[in-house]
């Protein structure tokens, strides 16, 4: 285990769609953040709205910085035994399993979770459903009852929960809040007589730990926050899992701030409208997932060709086609970097954590405006939906700088696509005096008029103008962690997987393996020099990715011409630390460590 001091526990809540599993986890993580903990949380849910699929909400609560979820949970709460039984094994020894021991229908032998709890785990059964019905006349508040029970069992501050519950239901009728508070109190009462036998301990944090500034955010929430701080003016969206919540957030926040928000009839019209708005000089964006990006590919090509700044957030899910809409994957990298017709070079940023989402989304407009091109912020379901505590910047560092007007060119010969030294052309927007011009998806000359002969020059311009982006100020394009100088194993990663990579690296170091890690945030164009320097220091390079082929490894190998070791997985779940660690051990030539020594000696019977 990693050598961390203080609190570091993970709670998993498992239920069926409709049980309120996710809402329960949501309250838990927000309350934990309010208590001053660092929180990472991730929900897994099925495509059906309220059908019968499995939902799991995992919340890691720590007093120190953490980078991913833990492999083992300390506490598992079952709201649906059928779904929770396969997860009992994820609970560590002397951890707790909380479940309903008062079912209403007969279950076959083996159908109740209590029959699956290992002797080293601690069972806590109570009448969750009955207490819920008693408190609120409905079984729907079971998810809140368990929170009360949890708060009582681990002595978590009640008022923080109550505040979050009140906040969460603030827009609902008063009775909804009252019922949920009743359910929470009923859970407290149910937990009050319980003797705690597990060894899961939550220490009180100094309120200053994270401070009141810390906010609980998802990757999608952070994207929306970054957009708002960057002064987004127009947003066009179409619902698609797992990007929808970006749209929903902006739908709430933009109108009061003077922004224009529209839900269009499809992704094709969403990107089209965004490109129109970008052309018209506003900060405009859309967000989608892989299938939507595929639809948008043609329109993105228009953005590249017409050199229109626009920001597209892409949250990846399992594919191809409709694929696994509620499962995470990093398999749209090729589409993001290469997708579309023709040589359509664009900028692709892939943040590695929630705070990164905030920074990349906020910075993306500036980059798009600087290079006059579409910028894709590539995240995935794991990052979109996972919660972390973030301290947002106090300043509006992403705000647009006042535009320096160009000199009017009254003769109608404004070279919107002028070939310049730095390959960036002067840009005017509709409404500016004397700078009128035409943009098009056809290949065009400096004036923007259709022209085939200039294609080579224009291609050069469109590619070369992006190269300096790897040094864009205010943006971490890549970063190295871990041991300095020469190391045995270097782990190269991108996107949401980097949290697990970092956790792995710390564990490997603790095992005595000389190890370093590098994250690459800008995937197109690639920061080749810093990656090359990293390669030079490492005996072995490992690239873990949640896709089948190793799309990033392919890109890196192509760019550097050096072989790397790949670790790929596509089971819908984030990469496990243990799997990466095993690979690191293998590459380092080190034998796996033996398991924990048994602290028991059997008494003579």
């Amino acid at each position, binding site marked *: 285990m990693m050598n961390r001091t203080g609190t570091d526990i993970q709670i998993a809540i498992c239920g069926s769609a409709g049980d309120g599993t996710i809402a329960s986890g949501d309250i838990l993580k927000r309350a934990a953040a309010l208590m001053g903990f660092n929180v990472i949380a991730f929900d897994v849910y099925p495509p059906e709205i309220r059908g019968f699929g499995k939902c799991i909400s995992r919340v890691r609560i720590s007093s120190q910085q953490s980078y991913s979820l833990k492999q083992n949970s300390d506490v598992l709460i079952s709201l649906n035994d059928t779904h929770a039984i396969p997860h009992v094994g994820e609970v560590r020894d002397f951890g707790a399993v909380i479940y309903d021991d008062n079912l209403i229908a007969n279950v076959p032998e083996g159908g109740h979770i209590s029959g699956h709890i290992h002797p080293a785990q601690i069972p806590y059964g109570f009448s969750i459903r009955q207490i819920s019905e008693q408190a609120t006349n409905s079984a729907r508040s079971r998810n809140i009852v368990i929170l009360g029970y949890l708060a009582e069992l681990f002595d978590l501050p009640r008022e923080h929960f109550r505040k979050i519950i009140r906040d969460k239901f603030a827009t609902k009728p008063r009775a909804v809040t009252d019922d949920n508070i009743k359910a929470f109190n009923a859970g407290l009462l149910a937990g009050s007589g319980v003797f705690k036998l597990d060894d899961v301990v939550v220490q009180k944090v100094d309120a200053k730990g994270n401070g009141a500034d810390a906010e609980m955010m998802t990757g999608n929430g952070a994207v929306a926050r970054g957009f708002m701080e960057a002064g987004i003016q127009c947003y066009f969206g179409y619902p698609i899992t797992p990007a929808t919540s970006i749209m929903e957030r902006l739908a709430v926040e933009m109108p009061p701030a003077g922004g224009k928000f529209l839900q269009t*009839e499809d992704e094709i019209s969403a990107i089209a409208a965004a490109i129109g708005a970008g052309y018209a000089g506003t900060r405009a964006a859309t967000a989608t997932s892989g299938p939507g990006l595929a639809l948008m590919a043609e329109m993105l090509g228009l953005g590249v060709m017409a050199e229109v700044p626009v920001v597209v957030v892409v949250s990846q899910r399992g594919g191809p086609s409709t694929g696994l809409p509620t499962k995470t994957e990093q398999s749209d990298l090729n589409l993001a970097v290469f997708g579309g017709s023709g040589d359509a070079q664009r900028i692709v940023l892939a943040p590695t954590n929630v705070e990164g989402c905030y920074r990349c989304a906020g910075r993306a407009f500036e980059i798009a405006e600087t290079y006059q091109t579409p910028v894709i912020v590539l995240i995935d379901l794991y990052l979109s939906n996972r919660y972390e505590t973030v301290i947002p910047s106090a300043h509006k560092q992403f705000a647009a700088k006042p535009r320096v007007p160009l000199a009017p060119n009254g003769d109608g010969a404004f070279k919107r696509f002028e070939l310049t030294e730095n390959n960036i052309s002067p840009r005017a927007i509709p409404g500016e005096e004397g700078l009128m011009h035409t943009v098009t998806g056809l290949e065009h000359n400096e004036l923007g008029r259709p022209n085939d002969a200039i294609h080579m020059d224009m291609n050069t311009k469109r590619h070369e103008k992006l190269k300096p982006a790897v040094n864009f100020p205010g943006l971490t394009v890549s970063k190295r962690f871990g041991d300095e100088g020469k190391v045995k194993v270097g782990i190269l990663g991108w996107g949401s997987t980097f949290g697990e990579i970092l956790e792995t690296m710390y564990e490997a170091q603790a095992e005595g393996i000389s190890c370093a890690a590098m994250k690459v945030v800008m995937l197109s164009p690639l920061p080749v020099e810093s990656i090359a320097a990293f390669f030079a220091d490492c005996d072995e390079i490992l690239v873990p990715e949640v896709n089948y082929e190793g799309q990033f490894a392919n890109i890196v190998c192509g760019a550097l011409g050096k072989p790397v070791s790949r670790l790929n997985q596509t089971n819908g779940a984030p990469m496990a630390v243990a799997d990466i660690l095993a690979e690191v051990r293998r590459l380092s030539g080190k034998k796996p460590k033996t398991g924990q020594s048994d602290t028991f000696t059997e008494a003579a019977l």
Partner: protein
Amino acid sequence: MNEHVEPVYLEEKLEEIRADGHQGYRSKSLPTWCPGCGYYSMAEGLTFALRRLEIAYKDVVVVSGIGCASRFPFFFKTYGFHTLHGRVLPVATGVKIANDALTVVAVGGDGDAFAIGGGHIPHAARRNIDMTYLVFDNGIYGLTKGQTSPTSAVGFKTSSTPYENSDVPLNPLMMLLSYGASWVGQAYAGHQHDLADMITQAMSHKGFSFLRILSPCVTFDKTDNTYANLNLHVHDLPQDHDTSNLMAAMQAASQTDKPALGVYFKDDRPTLAQAMNATATRASGTG
């Protein structure tokens, strides 16, 4: 309604149901819609219609797009095709053109039909492909958890219209009437018997039949298209409504605040298959 209290005896009822045979059209697996969803009513309605028209399972293909309604084919023991969002009609057209002997039922929700798929409907309608298009209209996006749809009312609050929807809803009946659909009707999920009857009539029609079915989303719409509200507002088309009069149909279709149920318009004209046969005849120079 009979106010007399008559005792109900279960085994007699079950015998009736078994004798009726409509259970046979169901698949083994239970529908996964939210409990209370109006789509259950439609599933019942389609099974009754298929039974009444005595169409063999093997001759039926149910095609759908993406959305709650598009789960439909999974719950039937017929051929089914669950395609992509909004692309129901092109796929169904392909199936029907490939084999005219099949009974093709296209199903989808209001988002699938009138938003992303809106561009396809006029063409399916004017070509008069011999299929039935059942649009389950609940005025909301259920599968993505409650955003506004093209048929949502003005003032409707959803997660994407937190400050109220200001877009005027589409009028699918007037659209379809103007697109040239040869059979246009409207039914309501809460009147399950009438619904079954309407599906039967739609499927009996030779040509493109469009049936709009008003249905509540019990999970994400607690205010507008609820059973309670719809029960208050729906009513039958007048007895003397002339189904051959397009303008009368348009007039009736324009009454959106009190939706009328029944067959609005019916026109017997050549189907795509017939037209293709005619084209083939002309092309071969034998006509």
